[in-house]
């Protein structure tokens, strides 16, 4: 029966819309046809809608989708009436409500900026940069992004420099590393938001006896049949090995986001030691590649960041503990302290074609990245502040994960600017280790050859 109804319906619909749609002139130019097509569709939609809805009860809601969606959206929030214009803000899903609240406070405190309609959308920090670059015009006016995207964003013309009026204030209020991260060439392009994009060790107290040595951790995990997670095929986590042995990897940029010079010393004795340590880790039974607690199974220890602290507490329960990264030994028994990147989240403002709107965006971004908001944000979602005053507040200082991070940060290098290709190149190096192309049976020459290739590629990104 149902089949019959459906087929009859389709027939009726085809018949109906043919008359409506195909009656037009056959001699129209393409210019005219595009809108005509839409009109046809609209016409067809109208006639069909009722029948369709009757056909399937679930589609009851279908017809209002277009108009109503805007009011119902959950993770986005709207502030203001929009008489002066629209401002789009993109932040991670977790802080949408928080950001909307803060924006409301901002407009209460600054009534002279009123009249703008601010929409907060949940766009993951990783996606934000890609989306901004696809279409700057349709992108957000203010958006949060991880620092590794900054050079790419500057090159694509998606970032405005920080307002000169508050430049000195921003520079003095935030820690040095975060300012360096937000600087391309000699220009400050973004407002530091957090200073917690570093990694350290979460572990299970009942399994890991001594978190200070990689060898012990792995032995403990192997004995307990549990896993140690570290994402060695990520350019971000990988540097924990290379920087530990004293390798250098940094770039210099000009004001337009172009890379002008590369300092890479991976193809060296130090690099070889680091690579061998990575290979050794990879060949441990307990090792798993990964850095997300949500996706880890049978977990005993993981190299991860503060954003996962609540997940870690969930997984480890009473045995939750964190510490700085462990040390590892090379063949000769020399010990190295794992290093790595300390990274930052930034808040950027898109170049604007109107001065007034730019002024509001500047002020709003400065406010959202300010010290008080950073403390509140820490309280709300646990993001570690980049603001020096906020870092020194009682709440932040008593946080176990942030303390471990702070300890680790003394061994790390603040992450500067890197070309996008570096990250994928590093994944290639990590994958080569993981899939056994580079293994403990590879000769030193083979390993050195891979490192030279890596270094050459790194240097080739400079133009």
């Amino acid at each position, binding site marked *: 029966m149902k089949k019959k109804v459906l087929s009859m319906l389709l027939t009726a619909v085809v018949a109906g819309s043919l008359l409506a749609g*195909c*009656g*037009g*002139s*056959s*001699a*129209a*130019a*393409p*210019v*005219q*046809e*595009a809108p*005509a097509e839409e009109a*046809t569709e609209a016409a067809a939609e109208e006639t069909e809608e009722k029948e369709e809805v009757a056909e399937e009860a679930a589609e009851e809601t279908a017809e209002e989708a277009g108009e109503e969606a805007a009011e119902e959206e959950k993770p986005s929030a709207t502030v203001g009436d929009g008489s002066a214009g629209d401002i789009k803000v993109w932040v991670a899903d977790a802080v949408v409500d928080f950001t909307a609240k803060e924006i409301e406070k901002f407009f209460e405190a600054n009534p002279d900026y009123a009249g703008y309609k601010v929409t907060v959308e949940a766009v993951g920090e990783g996606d934000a940069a*890609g989306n901004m*670059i696809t279409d*700057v015009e349709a992108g957000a006016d203010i958006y949060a992004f991880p620092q590794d995207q900054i050079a*790419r964003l500057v*090159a*694509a*013309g998606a970032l*405005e420099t920080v307002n000169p009026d508050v430049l000195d204030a921003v520079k003095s209020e935030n820690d040095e590393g975060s300012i360096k991260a937000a600087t391309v060439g000699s220009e400050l392009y973004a407002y530091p938001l957090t200073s917690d994009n570093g990694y350290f060790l979460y572990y299970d107290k009942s399994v890991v006896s001594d978190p200070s040595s990689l060898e012990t951790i792995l032995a403990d995990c192997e004995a307990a*049949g549990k*896993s140690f997670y570290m994402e060695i*095929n990520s350019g971000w986590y990988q540097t924990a090995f290379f920087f530990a042995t004293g390798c250098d990897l940094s770039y210099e940029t000009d004001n337009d986001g*172009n890379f002008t010079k590369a300092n890479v010393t991976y193809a060296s004795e130090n690099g070889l030691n680091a690579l061998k340590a990575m290979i050794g880790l990879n060949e441990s*039974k307990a090792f*798993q*590649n*990964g850095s997300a607690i949500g*996706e*880890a*199974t049978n977990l005993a220890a993981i190299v991860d960041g503060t954003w996962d602290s609540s997940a870690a507490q969930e997984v480890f329960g009473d045995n939750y503990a964190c510490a700085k990264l462990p040390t590892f030994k090379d063949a000769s028994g020399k010990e190295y302290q794992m290093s790595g990147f300390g990274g930052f989240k930034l808040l950027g403002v898109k*170049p*604007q*074609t*109107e*001065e007034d709107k*730019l002024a509001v965006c500047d002020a709003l971004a400065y406010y959202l990245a300010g010290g008080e908001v950073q403390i509140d944000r820490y309280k709300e979602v646990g993001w570690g502040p980049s603001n020096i005053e906020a870092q020194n507040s009682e709440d932040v200082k008593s946080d176990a994960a942030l303390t471990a991070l702070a300890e680790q940060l003394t061994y790390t290098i603040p992450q500067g600017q890197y070309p*996008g*290709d570096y990250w*994928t*190149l590093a*994944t*290639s*190096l990590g*994958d*080569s280790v*993981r*899939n*056994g*192309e580079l293994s403990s049976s590879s000769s030193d020459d083979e390993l050195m050859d*891979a490192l030279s*290739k*890596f270094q*050459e*590629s790194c240097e*080739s990104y400079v*133009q």
Partner: protein
Amino acid sequence: MKGDAKTKISYLILGFGQMVRGQWVKGIAFLTTEILFILYMVKFGGTYLSKITTLGTVETYKEGRKTVYGDNSFHILLFGILTIIVIIAFICIWYLNIRDNLKAEALLKQGKKLPSNTKVLRSLLDENFDKTLMTLPVAGVFLFTVIPIIFMICIAFTNYDAKHQAPANLFTWVGLDNFKELLSFGTQGMGMTFFKVLAWTVTWAFFATFIDYFLGLAVAMLINKKEIKLKKLWRTILVLTIAVPQFVSLLYVMKMFANDGLINGYLMKWGWISSPIPFWVDPMLSRVMIIVVNIWIGIPYLMLITTGLLMNIPSDLYESARVDGANSWQAFIHITLPYMLFVTGPFLLTQFTGNLNNFNVIYLLTQGRPQSINLANNAGSTDLLVTWLYKMTINDSNYRMAAVIGIMVFIVTAVVTMVVYNRLPSVRDEEGFQ
């Protein structure tokens, strides 16, 4: 210039002749087209067209803190192409208009009557019904398929990449530089990587097509056996993989086979293996896995298709084979297989070319990973050309090289199709049928 005064005026004012001769429906249609065309050129197309040779020269600059955007190379190229297409279309219409005028003139000269307006309109439902049916679909294809393809071909000849992105930066024509880069060998060159990825793409398409085909055929024959009951149940179980959206099923399968996933977890718990099997990590193994998972997706389709076809094989063929003493394997080799290959030849070809561009399976399962230090431009061991070019645009905004690879994909597909298609026995026969 041929024709009388009315026709001659129609050279400039489209539809004039028709209107004067009483065919106002046609006349208005032509005139409206002309007016719209002129409006389009003046208001929109003209400026873009004039800049298409340089793709813009005005740089973006700052006025105080305010940004003033200059030319947008992307828009210039896109709408320039659109405008060229519009102009060609208009010339066609203009030509139709002249021809129609001359025809009407000739008819009148012979003392015949012109078709009335109602007749013209009605013809759109009868002898000119094809125009009614085809106009919108053809226009749709032109606007949303042809123009984008022309655009992408053009991109291959520009320097549109991360450093030259509209609206803040201009890009321009660079000739064949990108093609040279693709074929450059040496440590930084893309040449080796391109051929490696190409080789895997073809290998993958071959296995994905033929393994699925034969296994699908086998399963179909198994279910078709007389002795098997509940045929519908078995088919329904298999067909689930078609019905469940791939982003759900494939993502789940991907997680299932992860190093720390369900399969490895159970195997280790049961003590069958001591360390996880690197399903998605080892280059060779991940390639095999992709082909295996694709079998899981592919068999049901092939089973459905071959089930119907198997029934079409005349049963007396089998009868006579049995009388001659052939066993079932011989019957399969000498009757079933030739028949099936003959009938499904063109289908296999489209399957093959489809698999060359099978984005979903690769992207949802591995995203082309694992990568290797031995492959340039972030290609991975399981990357097909299409997934590679997609990643190039998404991660690196390297549109120019992606466009070059896109053209290469087209060439590969077209060559395979042309070489194979004309050799298919069933194609030659079908031609006669048509």
